[in-house]
């Protein structure tokens, strides 16, 4: 029955991009008009999830698997059946994965500045650099298109409360945004303690979260072909580590992260250039969930990226080339010294529009990292658009290579770091089919295959656990995505859905294939937004199939199916003169986990059941 349901979801899945303020302006993203290497574009994600963290935004927008260590704990992202280390998180092009562990934690990224999210899956992630074997998620800063202020007040179950404020200023030649906020939650939610006989209901303790952040953005437009900007954020996160079901230890972890980025855009007659200089620093406490071992890491990341694009034959052919360099240094007590990493890369990207119906792209990337060169990684893709105005069908294919360098821990952790490790390298291919009937429905299917060699695994060698290249991984999957919007009398509907079904397997040396741990066979997310006059209802659903938690496939986590709803009322007061106020009020009521599902994402880290949230958003323009 469950399989039939998944087939249904793949073929007829539904879902929506909800934008409460701008439903009428909602337009399907016609991929034939966008850059070919971006798979998903989530615009204005915080319009509907203003009080959510990035984890919630992503899980409500993509068929992504997020391994969550409980509210307040870390969360890791997994795209395309890869490991968390094979999913790269970027802030406007800057890598913000932890240099030590190689993974990223979306729970600690402030969302006040996020204006859009670009998701590149598999091979397409090459455009952002190496490492994203599963995919890459690039967070873009907000576009400032008006002057005004925004204030949000929020309260909810389990001691949740938040205050967010932003001010925007738009002048003829400059745009400015400043904002900040704080978020607290006690997280004293009830859960079933499955570690005890009879599974008694207990209350989570010592799981408090406290986040404060500030962000700033400034853009100066010299003229319509030249502008420069600066943006940055500073975020402080404190979270208590609950005793969990495994350990009675109580501790608090504190992270501080800051980012500052300078950007310069310039257009010449035939050239367009974009140059970024970014600094990303982080002080992070990390506690291993199993071993309860603490490590404090201090990392600094300085990254330079310059991309040049030239247009030929009235945009029939474009050539884009980029050079980027990055230095990272990392201090971890266990390394006993500071480790440096210098990485430089040169890549070139050629996109050709042969005819109105055909376009091709080719990328080549070469990187230098840690005193060694990575392999040259080519990617080639071709898209054929059938000339049918009614359905706008298109078929595309891509094939290429990618790779990921080992993390600092893999190389230097004591004991067991292995400086002789080779990068993980993958070969991938994908085939997709896209329809856009009547410009009202986007229907997208993709099949892909990925094989990764030299997968890095920690194994006991001569009595000491050591990182080694032993693993062979493969992922075979299908993805579908459907988006639409329509009106029925006075009701407006906006729907979209994303589905991914895959088999992700791995094996070491001469042994049999096993399913990759923590990779569900199916991920699905969907939402429907209905609007009537000033009211709107947003219904969201996300689910994943069961997944194994060990390499032997003997222990599994059951499937999870979560539902949530958001009811909004928008008020724009009217004066006696008939004019409307410049102030908009939004009242929101949200129910998360509406069916009170008791579940865990990571074994023995309980997640909360049903919870409620109310918020008031004041917008003055």
């Amino acid at each position: 029955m469950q399989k039939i349901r998944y087939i249904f979801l793949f073929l007829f899945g539904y879902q929506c991009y909800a934008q409460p303020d701008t439903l009428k302006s909602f337009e399907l993203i016609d991929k034939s008009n966008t850059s070919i290497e971006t798979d998903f574009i989530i615009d204005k994600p915080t319009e509907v999830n203003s009080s959510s963290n990035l984890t919630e935004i992503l899980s409500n927008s993509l068929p992504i698997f997020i391994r969550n260590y409980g509210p307040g704990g870390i969360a890791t992202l997994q795209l395309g059946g890869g490991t968390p280390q094979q999913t790269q998180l970027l802030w406007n092009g800057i890598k913000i994965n932890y240099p030590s562990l190689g993974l990223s934690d979306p729970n600690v990224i402030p969302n006040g500045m996020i204006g859009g999210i670009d998701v590149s899956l598999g091979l397409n992630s090459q455009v952002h650099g190496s490492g994203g074997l599963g995919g890459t998620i690039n967070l873009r800063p907000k576009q400032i298109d008006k002057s005004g202020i925004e204030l949000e007040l929020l309260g909810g179950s389990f001691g949740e409360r938040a205050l967010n404020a932003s001010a925007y200023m738009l002048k003829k030649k400059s745009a400015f945004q400043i904002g900040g906020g704080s978020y607290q939650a006690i997280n004293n939610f009830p859960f079933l303690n499955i570690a005890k006989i009879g599974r008694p209901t207990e209350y989570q303790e010592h799981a408090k979260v406290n986040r404060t952040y500030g962000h700033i953005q400034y853009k100066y437009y010299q003229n319509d072909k030249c502008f420069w900007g600066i943006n940055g954020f500073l975020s402080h996160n404190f979270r208590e580590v609950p005793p969990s079901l495994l350990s009675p230890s109580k501790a608090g972890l504190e992270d501080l992260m800051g980012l500052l980025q300078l950007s310069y855009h310039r257009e010449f007659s035939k050239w367009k250039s974009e140059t970024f200089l970014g600094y990303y620093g982080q002080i992070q406490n990390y506690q291993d969930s199993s071993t309860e071992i603490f490590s404090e890491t201090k990392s600094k990341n300085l990254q330079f990226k310059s991309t040049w694009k030239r247009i030929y034959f009235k945009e029939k052919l474009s050539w884009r080339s980029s050079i980027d360099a990055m230095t990272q240094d990392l201090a971890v007590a266990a390394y006993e010294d500071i480790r440096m990493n210098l990485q430089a890369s040169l890549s070139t990207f050629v996109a050709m529009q042969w005819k109105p119906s055909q376009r091709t792209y080719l990328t080549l990337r070469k990187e230098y990292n840690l005193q060694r060169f990575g392999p040259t990684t080519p990617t080639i893709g071709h898209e054929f658009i059938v000339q049918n105005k009614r359905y706008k069908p298109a078929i595309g294919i891509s094939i290429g290579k990618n790779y990921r360098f080992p993390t600092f821990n893999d190389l230097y952790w004591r004991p067991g770091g292995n400086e002789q490790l080779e990068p993980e390298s993958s070969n991938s291919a994908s085939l997709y089919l896209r329809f856009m009937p009547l410009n009202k429905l986007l229907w997208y299917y993709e099949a892909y295959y990925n094989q990764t060699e030299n997968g890095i695994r920690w194994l006991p060698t001569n009595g000491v656990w050591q990182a080694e290249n032993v693993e062979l991984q493969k992922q075979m999957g299908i993805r579908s995505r459907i988006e639409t919007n329509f009106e029925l009398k006075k009701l407006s509907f906006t729907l979209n859905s994303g589905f991914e079904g895959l088999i992700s397997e791995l094996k070491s040396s001469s042994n049999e294939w096993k399913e990759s741990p923590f990779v569900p066979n199916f991920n699905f997310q969907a939402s429907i937004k209905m609007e009537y006059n000033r009211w709107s209802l947003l219904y969201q659903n996300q689910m994943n199939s069961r997944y194994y938690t060990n390499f032997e496939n003997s222990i599994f986590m059951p499937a999870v199916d979560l539902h949530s709803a958001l009811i909004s009322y928008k008020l724009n007061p009217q004066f006696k003169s008939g004019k409307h106020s410049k102030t908009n009020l939004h009242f929101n009521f949200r129910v998360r986990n509406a069916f009170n599902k008791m579940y865990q994402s990571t074994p023995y880290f309980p997640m909360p059941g049903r919870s409620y949230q109310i918020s008031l958003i004041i917008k003055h323009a």
Partner: protein
Amino acid sequence: MRSLLYIFLIFLLSACDKDLIGPQYEIGNSSNQGRIYILNEGNFGSGNGSITQYDINSQTSANGIFQAQNGIPLGDIPQDMIRLGDEYWISVNNSGKVLICDTNFNLLNQIMGLGSPRFLKAFGNKVLCTDLYGNGIHVLDPNSYTKTGFIPIADWTEQLEVVANECWVSGVNTGQVYIINQQYMLEDSIALNKGPGKAIKDQNDFVWVLCSGGYQLEQPILYQINPQNKQVLQQHNFGGINNSPGSLQVNDAKDSLFFISGGVWSTSIYNAGVFTSLYNQNHTYYGFKYLGQNLMMLTDAKNYAINGWAYVLSSNGSLIDSLECDIIPGTIFSE
């Protein structure tokens, strides 16, 4: 509109799910009918250590018996297991703890914060616990389940054995065998080669210690020691540092020694320089124990990433039975 209704119905119905929460074992429960237990280390840092139970009479086995009994995982790298009255004590190395269970593996208590505990031994009215990085031996009280003392030793301490009124502890990096007295103090030491293993008593009450050489650092050597004066009576080289013998065992009559070095070997205590190969199928042999009644058990860690196996052998090296364990089967405990 009707199709929308159908879609809603599907998703509302889907919310009525079965009540499974948290990790579930794919395989069956323990039957608690065996007397041989194999500690599977699991993947480092993954917390997926487990215990395999094997019934030598019915030749049946069950994996994951601790988790099946308690609903929580054993921890990261279970290292050693002893019996103390009606309790099993299990050291879990990378979780820094010692678990105390009843003989049905119901968790009774745990002692936390031990750093990197390795091997356990009841000595006097305490339990001694060696440590990989702790530079000493923990003294644990079996009544209060607390750590009540610590014996400082600047070394990676490993195997323990009670010899007369002393506890002999192997020091892996220095090649010393440390002698702990009944006052739980370091009293003496015996200098051997790197990587000494467990002290084994023979039928003449002499003690045998097999030094691995410390992973190709020194010559592996088998020593015979007089426990009275701590003098080395005889020593036998293994002919090269590439050998890495370990897991020395003795038979019921205590006149034959067994060990693993790429396979299972034996030697007589009266002709100790002559080593006889008993069993070798070119596997990754990791744990080894003489079970008694002319039976031995040998574990195969395969490539350390997939499920390992255990083999039951007769004392002449013939294969009697084999069973699949979890990842990296290591220490074997038998009643």
